[in-house]
């Protein structure tokens, strides 16, 4: 199963004036993989992610996402990826159902498909009873899982999660990671950035960015061995130093 490279990047670079925010990064992500994209604030994570999701044009280098060129075919890429940011990306003044319908609508799903998806999501997340309630009234953990489900309303091949668990308590974070595992089991590729080093342990493979470059890329266990560290936290500290 794990032989398709859904993300493949070579010497991808983003330059703002003299400053190289992302400096010749190369890596690939396999289908169904949970790929952790780590780095301190300002290391270039967000910029790299923006290039992969078609929000920003690379200055040089090349790459494909879901089989399409990041330079020329960003529109095609957008149809095949899901995206969720740490801000949860739902409309608080819309009900749960309205949010699902809206996002289904903008991804061009038919009325029928939207109906099916809506009941499916509500059932899976046990939200059937609050389907007609405003998102504002839901607890944070529910909102977050709903946002994750909504980001996959169009069955994307890859889901990009930009610090999805920022500012959430550990219990909710664990629940959220369960949802991520479920999605990965369905063959979906998860590309996730995070601050929390304990979460890095949950990933299949992890890359660590330091000032625009990828300094390490391997499975969490291999990384710990290479850097002779007890935890990912230690690995990260050794690299960042």
């Amino acid at each position, binding site marked *: 199963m794990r032989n398709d490279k859904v993300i493949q990047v070579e010497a991808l670079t983003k330059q703002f004036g003299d400053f190289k925010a992302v400096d010749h990064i190369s890596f690939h992500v396999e289908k169904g993989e949970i790929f952790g994209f780590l780095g301190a604030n300002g290391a270039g994570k967000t910029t790299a992610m923006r290039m992969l*999701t*078609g*929000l*920003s*044009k690379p200055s040089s280098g090349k790459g494909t996402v879901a089989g399409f060129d990041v330079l020329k075919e960003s*529109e095609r890429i*957008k*149809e095949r*990826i899901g*995206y*969720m*940011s*740490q*801000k*949860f*990306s*739902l*409309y*608080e*003044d*819309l009900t749960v159902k*309205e949010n699902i*319908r*809206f*996002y289904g*609508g*903008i*991804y*061009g799903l038919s009325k029928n498909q939207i109906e099916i998806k809506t009941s499916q999501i509500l059932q899976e997340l046990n939200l059937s009873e609050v389907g007609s309630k405003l998102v504002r009234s839901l607890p944070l953990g529910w909102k977050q899982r709903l946002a994750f489900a909504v*980001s996959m309303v169009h069955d994307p091949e890859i889901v*990009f999660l930009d610090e999805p668990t920022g500012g959430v308590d550990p219990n909710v974070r664990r629940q959220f990671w369960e949802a991520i595992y479920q999605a990965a089991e369905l063959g979906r590729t998860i590309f996730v950035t995070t601050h929390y080093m304990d979460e890095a342990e949950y990933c299949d493979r992890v890359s660590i960015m330091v000032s625009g470059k990828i300094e390490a890329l391997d499975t969490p266990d291999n990384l710990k061995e290479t850097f002779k560290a007890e935890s990912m936290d230690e690995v990260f500290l050794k690299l960042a130093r």
Partner: protein
Amino acid sequence: MVKVFWAFVKKEFYHILRDKRTLLILFGMPLAQVLIFGYAVTNEFRDAEIDVLDYAKDETSEQYINHLQSSGNFRVRRILASQNEVEEGMKGGKTKLVVSIPENFSEDFYAGNPIKIQVVTDGSDPNNANTLVQYLTEMTQSFQRLKRNEVPNPYSIQVASRMMYNPQLASAYNFVPGTIALILLIICAMLTSLTIAKEKEIGTMEILLVSPLSPLLIILGKVAPYALLSFVNAVIVILIGFFVFEVPVLGNTLLLLGMCFLYVLTALSLGIFISTTVKTQQEAMMKSLMGLMMPSMLLSGFIFPLASMPVILEYIGKIIPATYFIRILKGVMLRGVGLNFILFEVGVLLVMTLGFLLLSWRNFKIRLE
């Protein structure tokens, strides 16, 4: 494509209908503004209190004082005894104007001798003072005609003036076009910049940009509901003007509506432009209030005439869209002109709209690069 657009517009209507603040701005503000301008802000005076210093104290001076009061504009508050008391009432803010009638008024009046009536007004309120002096002059002239009943002197120049297009000098003729210009600007520009800034603030803008929706469609979907609502608002204000304040629509109705639509587009493009320069709703609010509301209200010729402003302000006034729209409205509504009379103004608005759209597009591109 149409379906996606519809999904977007529907969602936008949910936002509007569920936000009390937006609803208030949308429907409360136009009504409040029209009614405030219509009923409260007016230059017409009723029963302005005046003091009279009557040195003559004869029959004619009494008749003159009565004549002044007969107009309904003035009411005599006090008869003063000496020159020393002139300032008193004015300092207290009660008296707006003091008329002083010279000795031998009756005699000189009927003998045809020149008479000087002294009028003292409260200059701390210059607009009102001017209006009151005008009233008084008019009443004095009519008194003269009434009492002397003589043929006008054949050697003097008589000025016969007539106010075309607004014979009664009703202030509604000015404020209805002005209010439409302001309301459309506020609703279109402020609310669109707010709503786009809101999506940025809560992070949904990013999601929309990552989706296959084209940026153009996102913007169109966001502004379409506001365009529709503000257009409805313009029509409401025109109707209130027509039925409540009797402001006529002499020109072609279709042309008028078309012009409103053009201005809505200009205001929307301005709103979009503002939204590309801000990150938060608060910023958007500040920019549209300070950058649009204030100048449009003060420098568009709505309240103060452009021609009498210092050169710099006059130039600022000339880059404000409302200036041109008010001219168009007055032309079409009050003077009943056709498109050929307002081509210049229409051209300016078109160029402005295009300019704002281009600027927004450039800002947007830079952000993506």
